[in-house]
């Protein structure tokens, strides 16, 4: 009995010494390969050959040599030396060669010079930027707007400013490339739902709800967003905005709407898809659009409530770390906005022309028209694919070249379809002629 305590003491003493040793021992890296000699390491360095920086590109790749446009890409465009009617540039309201816009840009050039030489935070904010932001906010009837100097960077900087790692974003499958880049930069969980399929989206939202109930504390901090486009650039159809708003309130998700194609096109006054459907604009958390389509300038903007937009002034990467929009381009955008506000009739003209073109292109043998009658950029897709992507592309390109050569109408390729753009400047005859030629081309090449 008396020996038991000594026994204990010794055992406990050893245990304490062991613990102290473990506490003070250094950690060691497991990945250090200590089995290579210096000579072997040198040999590895000698032998290592990197891949070439870029893989070889064949000299006769069709997209390698761009078509050269001489002069402005306006209604009558000179492509590779030939004058054509422009069915390819997104100049929906024909503001690209408006004299008023050019004069305003000139006067701005004479006052401010060309570049801004700095980001918005460091003497790159001009009074024209502030004016343009106010005008856009007033036009869209929101509290605040923020301008970016490049259309692509607008939504690609806006999404990562709000959605971070761990947040969930529900995106339509047909979302455009800049949205995809924004999502990639945000590192959030991205869940794609089938194009314009509200049931699929609801299914995903319900699944997420079930997940949330398993872990309510985590669910309280994960932000959720739905990102959709007003008019999809890839498929030329509308998103069902009223249903989306209903889903928003039912599942407590915020909506980001990308309106590059529908700003200045849809709605009675050109305010976009919210006006078209009569949805209250405050229900949409963020509307983003670029000014490179209807407004015929360069850049992009986001608008919404100050609570949402003001955050981007410090955390939108394309806003804080990039030079601001050249003031002459901002002045051109303001003048374009003036023209849009003065004459709201132009939107009805554009819509009529869109319907006309849509009808004229129906019944083209071998090609089907994809897109709403209201969409100003229609897609013509092959009805029967040849099976190989390269062959499909060759056929489509042959049609484009034929149409350009024979009817002097310039249309372009877009991924796996032909895109036909409608602008207010196209006349009835020009549209008929182009449609006729496309039909001829389809018959000849696709038979």
């Amino acid at each position: 009995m008396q020996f038991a305590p000594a026994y204990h003491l010794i055992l406990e003493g050893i245990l304490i010494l062991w613990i102290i040793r473990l506490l003070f021992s250094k950690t060691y890296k497991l990945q250090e390969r200590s089995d290579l000699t210096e000579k072997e390491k040198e040999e590895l360095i000698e032998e290592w050959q990197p891949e070439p920086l870029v893989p070889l590109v064949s000299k006769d790749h069709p997209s390698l040599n761009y078509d050269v446009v001489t002069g402005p890409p306006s209604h009558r465009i000179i492509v590779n030396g030939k004058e054509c009617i422009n069915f390819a540039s997104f100049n929906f309201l024909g503001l690209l060669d408006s004299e008023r816009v050019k004069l305003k840009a000139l006067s701005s050039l004479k006052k401010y010079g060309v570049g801004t030489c700095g980001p918005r935070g460091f003497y790159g904010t001009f009074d024209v930027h502030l004016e343009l932001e106010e005008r856009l906010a007033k036009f869209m009837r929101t509290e605040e707007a923020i301008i970016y100097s490049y259309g692509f960077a607008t939504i690609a900087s806006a999404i990562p400013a709000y959605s971070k790692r761990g947040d969930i974003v529900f995106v339509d499958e047909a979302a455009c490339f800049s949205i995809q880049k924004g999502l990639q930069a945000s590192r959030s969980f991205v869940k794609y739902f089938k194009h314009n399929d509200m049931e699929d989206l609801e299914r995903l939202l319900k699944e997420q709800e079930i997940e949330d109930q398993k872990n309510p504390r985590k669910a309280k901090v994960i932000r959720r967003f739905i990102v959709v486009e007003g008019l999809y650039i890839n498929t030329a159809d509308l998103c069902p905005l009223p249903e989306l708003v209903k889903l928003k309130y039912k599942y407590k998700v915020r909506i980001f709407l990308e309106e590059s194609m529908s700003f200045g096109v849809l709605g009675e006054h050109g305010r976009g898809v919210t006006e078209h459907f009569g949805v209250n604009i405050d229900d949409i958390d963020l509307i983003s659009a670029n000014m490179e389509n209807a407004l015929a300038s360069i850049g992009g903007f986001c608008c919404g409530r100050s609570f949402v937009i003001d955050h981007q002034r410090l955390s939108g990467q394309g806003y804080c770390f990039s030079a601001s929009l050249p003031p002459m381009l901002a002045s051109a955008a303001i003048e374009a906005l003036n023209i849009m506000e003065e004459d709201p009739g132009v939107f009805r003209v554009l819509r009529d022309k869109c319907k006309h073109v849509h009808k004229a292109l129906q019944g083209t043998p071998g090609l089907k028209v994809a897109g709403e009658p209201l969409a100003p950029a229609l897609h013509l897709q092959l009805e029967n694919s040849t099976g190989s992507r390269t062959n499909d592309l060759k056929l489509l390109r042959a049609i484009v070249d034929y149409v350009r050569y024979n009817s002097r109408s310039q249309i372009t390729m877009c991924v796996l379809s032909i895109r036909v753009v409608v602008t207010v400047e196209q006349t009835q005859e020009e549209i008929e002629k182009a449609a006729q030629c496309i039909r001829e081309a389809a018959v000849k090449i696709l038979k």
Partner: protein
Amino acid sequence: RSMSLITCCYSLHMNPPPQNHHASCTSLYKKPFVESFEETPLLVAVLTYIGYGILTIFGYLRDFLRDWKFEKCHLAREREEQKDFVPLYQDFENFYTRNLYMRIRDNWNRPIRSVPGAKMDLVERVTPDYNWTFEHTGKVLKDVINMGSYNYLGFAENTGTCADAASECTVKYGVGVCSSRQETGNLDKHEELEKLVARFLGVESSMVFGMGFATNSMNIPALMGKGCLILSDELNHVSLVLGARLSGATIRVFKHNNMQSLEKLLWDAIVHGQPRTHRPWKKILILVEGIYSMEGSIVRLPEIIVLKKKYKAYLYLDEAHSIGALGPRGRGVVDYFGLDPCDVDIMMGTFTKSFGAAGGYIGGKKDLVDYLRLHSHSAVYATSMSPPITQQIITSMKCIMGEDGTTLGQERLCQLSENTTYFRRRLHEMGFIIYGNNDSPVVPLMLYMPAKIGAFGREMLKRNIGTVVVGFPATPIIESRARFCVSAAHTREMLDTALNAISEVGDLLQLKYSRKNRHGSEGTDLFSYLESHQD
């Protein structure tokens, strides 16, 4: 970091492993490479931390008062209908913005209403509620000396050949393009510009893009992918970091401008291969900038090229600030060191700073540029550059190259170089701590303490000089600074006015921290050597 006169030396017969290399006298640098980053004085560091501590405590106090409605809350609030949604912002994310940034917010986003040249007109703003909202009084502060805009060669002007050419182009082409490069957005002007840029840089071919930021973030993913390694400098710009992240490659960071750190990373990468699988890397890319805009340091290009050739890595050089601003002929950092442009695989730069326009370019071998024409996201999805901007770049570039028949370009390059040396010498003599290389037109002046950030900006504006002050998170938390950008458009008188004002404010705010021997022979000899060797 301590002051050292580095007359560089790098041994070409290095002993691996890289820990024990020794400098031999083989000089890779044709002229002295002098950079200094004086250490923060201990007392100043302690006071700075105390300052931030006090601000944080007050921040918590004010948040408490705002939550309990003792103080009026100016922040925008969520909609009533969306109150039960998950909050869009976490409170602590915006703590810094609400409580520290708001106090000195009037130093940034100052609106101007003239050309951002050597002198500018600022719109006067007042704030009735401590920077939460601003009102424009309608008055204009005229002829404020501009030490903040990136106008290195003075091409931000509304008169002269550049402006006239851009006006003509606007009348002929309009302002917008409405299409991407691959579709109908490729104008003849773009082709002309690309050939000119290739000639300017001395490379085979080049491609231009509409935005400098987007040039990095859209082209690095086209070149690098999974299985590649990107070695990026610690202080690289956000666009480079974003491009590297979007590419999906593995990123490793080396210490700023530190060649030993870079070599160790290269060594480890090739010897050990990819993590866990140990497969060899497909490609290794070194990502550096010409001039780092927050530090004012110039990249050690000769040493990097030696390393790159030894380890067969590729080099991506971002010359956003250095193109047009460095080098006897204005061709950037490659020209400054007298190296061969073919050694740099990918030369990238922007037109915003020295050319007074907007946009970016990438130059290199023809294969590289052909590949980018096909696979760059910008060519397929983003709009091309606006025509008057393109014309401005063409005119200013021809001017710098001397092809417009005048010597204006060469004069401006010399003026910039002289201005830089003079400005740095005077600031150094006054006793301020200045970071960076002696030849870099970007001059960071250390402020350290948070209160001095706001005070410096405001005091300089009172003396009619517009400066840029930067704090956390663009810089490390105790190293806030004021950053001056010297321009060729600044005359000696303007610089003297600015320097006198800086000295006055420096005395007022006790900013002259430098403990180096300012009046000693070593310092003046070096500066006078540099000044007398201006070509």
